[in-house]
């Protein structure tokens, strides 16, 4: 193993990280590399919005060097390519190698920073120590001020997780599977209570350090970009409703910044307890859309679940907002010239920007359908749900075939949907 070159290890340990959905490098404290303790400035900046430096052919943004410290693991989670009983090639970086790689990519402007996760070697604490060491080398020895995301090991000592939070912009702790039964079955070495306990600790550390910073300017920052988590979709029987309700409990309970959904992807050397087929990627997309509804459109988890079909899953052919609107047609049409903002946000086809524009524009004049058309991407989807000066959908809203009229026409959208 030690004879592997850096490039071999990078290949193995990036390959092992490719199943992870999260990539965002945004939402952290503004930092830049001018001036500072060492006089001549450090390296790196974060300016709120993360930057996608490249896109992979899977449409996903590459903004961070996302790798594993090692893919050796003493655990045996069935959905995971790195589980103990899998036959993949193993490799292991030293903390110094990870730091060097991060810097040489960063200096060439390939990335925004590092997203480090790891298989569990020796023990949870040992692994966590190594990850913290990577971040320490970057921050302390190189004055690196770019983005660092550490995926912590929930079983590790809270003190180590605290160290991680002082160095990282974001901490994540994966819940992996939405139900306890799924976790017991597919990740027998993990424990739902322990995972949530770790999230709770991180959350209270975040809150405490935030409070301290209000009082003392020099109190340390702790994971300024908050904590996030990831759930694997389609590896077990959990329905979209299970997933959405779990996500909403996590958002509420631990003030998570983001919940990522990752469609279970076939892994080489898979375990026999897994499904044979990958779930459609569009399912993952629908879950992200429902996430938006909850975070930016004021929907309750309950309401998203109401939009699901009888089997507890969101429809795949239409988006959850449209699904909700079709189920609750009695709340439409809404008058674009009068309806309050929170109601307009419920109109399928109107995003936050469009609603803001409508509200600004209607201060100047009464809107006609044509005006609304100028403010939205596609008026066709919006029409059945609104009234304007010269437009009322009358019977359109109630047509039995409305869903067919509005659903995108082709099945093959699955692969190419945004």
């Amino acid at each position: 193993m030690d004879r592997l070159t850096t490039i071999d290890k990078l290949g193995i340990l990036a390959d092992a990280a490719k199943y992870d959905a999260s990539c965002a490098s945004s939402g952290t404290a503004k930092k830049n590399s001018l001036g500072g303790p060492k006089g001549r400035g450090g390296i790196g900046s974060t300016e709120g919005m993360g930057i996608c430096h490249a896109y992979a052919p899977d449409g996903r943004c590459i903004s961070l060097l996302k790798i594993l410290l090692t893919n050796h693991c003493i655990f045996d989670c069935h959905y995971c390519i790195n589980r103990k009983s899998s036959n993949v090639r193993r490799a292991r970086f030293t903390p110094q190698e990870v730091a060097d790689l991060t810097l040489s990519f960063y200096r060439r402007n390939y990335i925004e920073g590092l997203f480090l996760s790891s298989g569990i070697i020796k023990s949870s604490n040992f692994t966590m120590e190594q990850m913290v060491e990577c971040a320490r080398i970057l921050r302390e020895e190189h004055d690196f001020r770019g983005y660092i995301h550490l995926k912590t090991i929930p079983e590790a000592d809270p003190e180590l997780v605290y160290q991680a939070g002082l160095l990282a912009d974001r901490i994540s702790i994966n819940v992996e599977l939405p139900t306890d039964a799924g976790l017991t079955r597919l990740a027998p070495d993990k424990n739902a209570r322990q995972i949530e306990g770790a999230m709770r600790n991180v959350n209270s550390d975040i809150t405490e350090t935030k409070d301290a910073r209000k009082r003392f300017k020099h109190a340390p920052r702790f994971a300024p970009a908050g904590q996030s988590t990831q759930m694997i979709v389609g590896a077990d029987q959990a329905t979209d409703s299970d997933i959405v309700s779990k996500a909403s409990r996590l958002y509420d309970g631990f003030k998570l910044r983001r919940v990522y959904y990752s469609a279970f992807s076939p892994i080489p050397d898979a375990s026999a307890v897994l499904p044979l087929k990958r779930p459609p990627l569009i399912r993952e997309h629908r879950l992200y859309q429902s996430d938006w509804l909850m975070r930016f459109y004021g929907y309750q988890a309950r309401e998203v679940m109401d939009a699901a079909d009888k089997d507890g899953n969101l429809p795949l052919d239409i988006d959850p907002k449209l699904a909700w609107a079709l189920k609750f047609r009695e709340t439409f049409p809404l008058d674009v010239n009068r309806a309050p903002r929170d109601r307009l946000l419920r109109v399928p086809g109107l995003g936050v920007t469009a609603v803001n524009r409508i509200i600004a524009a209607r201060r100047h004049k009464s809107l006609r359908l044509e005006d609304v058309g100028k403010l939205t991407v596609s008026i066709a989807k919006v029409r059945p749900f609104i009234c304007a000066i010269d437009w009322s959908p009358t019977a359109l809203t109630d047509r039995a075939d409305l869903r067919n009229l509005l659903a995108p026409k082709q099945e093959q959208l699955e692969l190419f949907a945004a």
Partner: protein
Amino acid sequence: MSAHRQTEDNLHYSVSMLEPDDFAFWRHKARQLVQSNIPPERVSWSEAGGCGDLFSGGDTQLPPVPNDAATVRASKRFLSLAKNVVLHTDLERFALLYGLLWRQQSNPRIMEDKTDNDVRRAEELDKAVRRDSHKMHAFVRFRMVELENGEEHYIAWFEPDHHIVRANAGFFKRRFANMHWSILTPRGCIHWDGDSMRESPPARRGDAPCDDPTEDLWRKYYASIFNPARLKVSAMMSEMPKKYWKNLPEASLIPELIANAQKRESQMVAAGEQDFQAKPETLEEVGTAINRCRNCPIGDCATQAVMGEGPKNARLMIIGEQPGDDEDKAGKPFVGPAGQLLDVHLEKSGIDRKDAYVTNAVKHFKFVLKQTARGKIRLHQSPAAKEIDTCRWWVEAERDIVKPKLVLALGASAARVVFGKTVSISQARGKPIPLEDGSELWITAHPSYLLRLEGEARATQTQLFDADLAAVQQRLVQL
């Protein structure tokens, strides 16, 4: 309106920008024009190096601003928009902005009317410039050269669509403060030496270095982080249009990655997939299926698969490890020495083996051939975790059909096939573990373990084994 201004009613003014991205200059001129009450249709704007203006009446000298001129007003939104719009390459941008500034004097909220064509046009230009800047932040790729004095210099070649280079210098300065770098573009270059920023005239592509060994690492990363099971080319293309590809070292890999994605995905699936098809619904079907099963390497060495045995609706399921030499030949579970020992202890505890469904975690005999004095013997080998997990499919099929209230796992392999992980028998034995389907799992040692022990150890373990079986029997009565 003063007489002085009325006399100039027919004059056209032309303003020539010195730099295409000089917002301060534009603002200064525009303010002057508004204060002199000169409407947009009497002003023409041109860029330095541009071809003058057809309407200009020759007098490019703007009139002096009257002393009583009102202050010029512009909304915050307009100012931030205008700063960006100026950077666009559209030649109409200065006139467009002046028109909006002019209209704002009588309608201060004009910028809020997103249905207005001028407002929409300005927003489009702003958006294009912001996008271009964003792409510059993202797609500038530095290459490192080592200077003679040993210092590292990072040099990038970039081709922006608009006049954004100077406006974005600050971003790169804040990000790469302790590096020496240059960004070369056909619209002018910027250089940072760790202390100060310098500008220089436009460059050509050949002025930048043509490679950097680190790009091999970067390409390796790019190719490895891509999951071929999730191909979404259009999503990639909309964010990373082809026009940028020629300056991105990783882009040369894209066509091949796309072309091979499907093949790689099927390989991934094939490597992960086992040919289980549908789960069998009767015990007979399980029997046929396991005989054909080659999902793990063990299937190939055994004589036959060994099916479980017992009533279809047994309340107790006993799971052993795997068939041994005798079972392999007989095609029946627990007929060898370990089976005989099990029978003795079951009887002792009052459990009737005929009432139980008895089966194994792994359905085929795993062994190695060993040469001994008496010829070759088949030496038993314990199944690997992976093999147990693979065979779990069949054990679950049996459990689904028989639906036992209580499962008794003999040994670690049996516990793993039900529980999914390897447990320590000494910790897990003697108490029920609730299972997903409402039944419960009990774990104890495998009888062959007792066979291997001697003396006191054997006595202690046998006692424990009996105690476990007694507890199971008691629990069966309760259930």
